C-alpha cells in the first residue's frame, strides 16, 4: 500500500498542534509515532492532533496514541483529538477511546480546555 500520510505541525502558545493527513496504518504509524516522540522529547506536554484530513485509521494507527499518553499525563499535559470524520471516529469509538481521550469537535475547543 502506498497511501500517503503527512503531518504538519504548528505551535500555538504552549500547545503543539499536529495536523495529520491521509492514511494512518501499520505502514505509516511510525511516522506519527516519531513526530509525537520528538515533541515529547522537546518537553511538549500539550498536544492536539487534528484528524480533519485523515481518511483512514487502522488498529496499528490507534496504538500510536497509547504510546505517549501516560508520560504526557504524568507531566501534567494531555493529547486531545479533534475534528474526526465519522468513519474514523467509529474506529476510535469501538475501541473505547472516548473513555481514554478527549475527542473534541475543533481545535478551538481543545485549546480552551488546555487554558483552563
Amino acid at each position, binding site marked *: *500500500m502506498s497511501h500517503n500520510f503527512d503531518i504538519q505541525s504548528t505551535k500555538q502558545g504552549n500547545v503543539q498542534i499536529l495536523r495529520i493527513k491521509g492514511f494512518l496504518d*501499520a505502514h505509516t*504509524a511510525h511516522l506519527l*509515532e516519531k513526530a509525537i516522540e520528538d515533541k515529547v522529547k522537546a518537553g511538549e506536554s500539550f498536544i492536539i492532533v487534528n484528524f480533519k484530513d485523515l481518511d483512514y485509521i487502522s*488498529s*496499528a494507527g*490507534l*496504538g*500510536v496514541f*497509547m*504510546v*505517549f499518553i*501516560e508520560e504526557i499525563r504524568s507531566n501534567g499535559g494531555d493529547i486531545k483529538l479533534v475534528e474526526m470524520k465519522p468513519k474514523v471516529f467509529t474506529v476510535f469509538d*469501538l*475501541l*473505547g477511546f472516548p*473513555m*481514554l481521550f478527549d475527542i473534541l469537535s475543533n481545535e478551538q475547543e481543545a485549546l480552551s480546555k488546555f487554558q483552563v
Partner: protein
Amino acid sequence: MARLAIIGILAKLALDSVSVIMPASLEWLLMPFIPLLGIGSLVIWVAAVEKDEEKIDCELSEKEQPLQLSSMIGNIAFIVLIVLIASNVTVSLLGSSSMTIISMAIFDMLILAFIAITGDIFRILRRLLILRRSSSTKLTMRVTLLFVLAFLFSSTLHFVFGVVDAMAIVISSGGLAAVWFFLRLNQNDWINALPRKDKIFLLRRTIFSLFTCLLVPGLLIHDSVDGNNGLESAYMSIGFCVVFASGIYGAALSRLFFSILFSLPTAQFIDRRNYEVESLIELNRLALSDTSIENIVTTIMFRAMEATRAEGAWCEALAPQSSDYIVLASAVLTDEHIAWFHRSSEFESKVLRSQEQILISNVEDDHNLAYLAKFPQPLARSVLAMPLFAGQKRVAMLVLVKRDAYGFQGDDLRILRAFQHNVKIVLDNAKLLRESIENERIKRELSLASSMQNTMLPQKLPEIAEFDIDIRCVPAAEVGGDYYDFVQLENGMWCLIIGDVSGKGIPAAFYMAHVKGIVLSLAGMAKSPSDFLLKVNNALYGNMEKHAYITMSVCMFDTDAKELVLVRGGHCPTFLKQNRAVAVVTPKGLGIGLAANSLFVPTLQEMHIPYSEGDIAYFFTDGVSEAKNTIDEEFGYEPILDVLRGVQDGETSKVINETIMHEVRSFVGTAPQHDDITSVVVRCVQSKAQNSLVTSSSNGEYQTVER
C-alpha cells in the same frame, strides 16, 4: 586405424626397397603385394581420417593442443636427422659392396625407424588439419592423398621396375603435394590466441623444424649422387619418401612460421584479452561460490595488481557510522603503510573517498601529497585508486601503488575500467545471492510460524447443546493476529472467544500466542464473561508494548438461563437476528491492554440476551468489515446485515456463513487481502446441532472439518 594405414603405406615403400636388393629370382614373390599394400593402406587411411573428423570435439587433451602437436613435429624431424646421419655413417663404414648379414639387419632397423617416424608426423599433420577443419578439409585431405598415391606408384615404377621416365612423376607429384599443402593449410588462427611467450617458443621450434626438414632431403640428395648399387638404390626409395614427407612438413611448417611471425606484434593485446577473459571467469566462479565481500575483494585486488604490475595494493571500506576505515585486504603494504596514506585529509577526501577512478602519476608534483614518497623507504610515487561498487553502493576502495613516478600507464587505467565493470557484476551477484538466501530463510521461518499458528486455533469445535456454530478463518499474510477459541468458564458454561491483535505479521502472531496462553489459564477461574475479560486485561495491561492492544468479544452460551452473555473489549460489534429483526449490538468496553483495570472494569458492559430457536448471532473481525475491493472501498456492515435479513428458517450456520463469505469474496474480487478474516455464525437450534469448523488457507480453498 589411421596409424595402421600409414604403416601400411610405408611398409609398401619398404618392400619397394627390399625388392630392389633381393635376388631377382625371388622378386616375383613380392610383386603382387606391393601395389595391393599401397592401395589398401590408402583406402584405410581415407576411412580413418573421415572417422576421426567426426569424433574430434572442442575439448582437446593437453597432448592434442596445436602448440604441442607443432612442437612435436620439430622433435620428430630432429630424430629423423639423427637417424639419417647414423645411417649415412653406417653405410659408409660398411662399404657399399659388402652385403653382410649385419648391414642388412641395420638397414632393416633403419627402415622400421623411418616407418614409425614418418607415420607419426603424418598423424600429427592430419590432426592439425582436422583441428581447425572447414568445409574444404576433406577435399584438402583427399587431394593430398591423390598426390601421395601418384608418388607411391611412380616411385615403385622407377625404383622397382626401373622405368626411368617415372622419376619426373615422382618429383612433380611430391612437389605438387607440398605446394598444395602449403596453400591449403590456412587454418592457423589458433596461433593468434596463444600468449606471447608460447608464440616465441613455437617460433623457435618452427625455425628448428624447418631447418631440419630442409636438411634431411638435402643430405639424402647429396648421398644419392655417389654409388649406384642395390643398397644405394633401395636407400634412394626410402630417401625419396623422406624428401616427399619433408616437403609436406616444410610446407606446413613454413606456413606456421609466417603465421606466427605476423601475429607476434599483436601478441600483447591478445595477452591482455586473455587476461581479461581469465579474470572474468575467475570472478564469475568466485561470485557463484563465495558471497563474502572480503574474499571477493581480495581476489580482485590480486588480479588488479597482476594486470597493472603494481608493487603494492590495499582495499579498504568505510567503517559503518564513522569516518574511519577498515582494511579488507592488503598486499605488500602493512597497516602502518596504509595509515601513512591516511595522514593527509586531502588525500583521504580526494582519492580514498572518490566515486571515480583516480590516477596520480607523480605524487611529488603535488606538494600536498609529496609526503607519500617520504616514508622511511620510498613507498609510492604513483597511485591508482578505483572504487568498487555493488549496486549503487560504493563498497570498497582499491588502491594500487608503484614506487616509481609515472609507473601507471593510460592503458592500465583502461584495463582497470573494463575490469571494474566485471567486478561490479560479481559484487552485485554476491549481494543478490546473499539477499536471496536471507529472503529464503525468512520465508521459511514465516511459513513455519504460520503452520505453528494454525495449531493454536481449535482443531475441533466443542459440542454445545442447542447451538449450530460455523467458523471460517482466512489468514491474510503468512501470520496474522486473528484469534478465536472455545473455553469453559468456572461454571462449566462454554464461551466463544473472538479477538484481534493490533498490527500484523510476526509481532501480532507473537501476541496472539501470548493471549492464547492467558485465555487458557484464566478461563477456568472466571465466574462470568466480564470477570474473564477483566482477568485477561489485568494479565496483559503493562505486559505488552505500549502501542499494542487486543480487541476481544466473549459470548457465553448460558443454556440454563437460555441467554447469551456478551461482553466486548473494543472488538467489532455483534450482529443479532431475533424475530426477523437484525440488530447491531455494541456493549461498552475498552480494548484489552489499553488501560488498567481501574478504568477498564467500570467501563465494561455485560449484556444478557435471551435466545430462542432460530436466533442468529454473527461475530467477526475487522478483516471482514474492512475488506477492500480493487478501488479501495470497504465491505462494511450492510452486506452482512442484508445476508442475515435474508436468512430463511432452517438454513444452517454453514450455509449462512458460506453466503457471507461468498459476498466478501465477490466484493473483494482480485484485490489483495490485507487482514485476517474470521467469520462466526451461531444459530440457536432446539435439537442437537451439527457444528462444523472451516479453516482455510489464504488461497481461498476451504476444508470442512465435520464433527
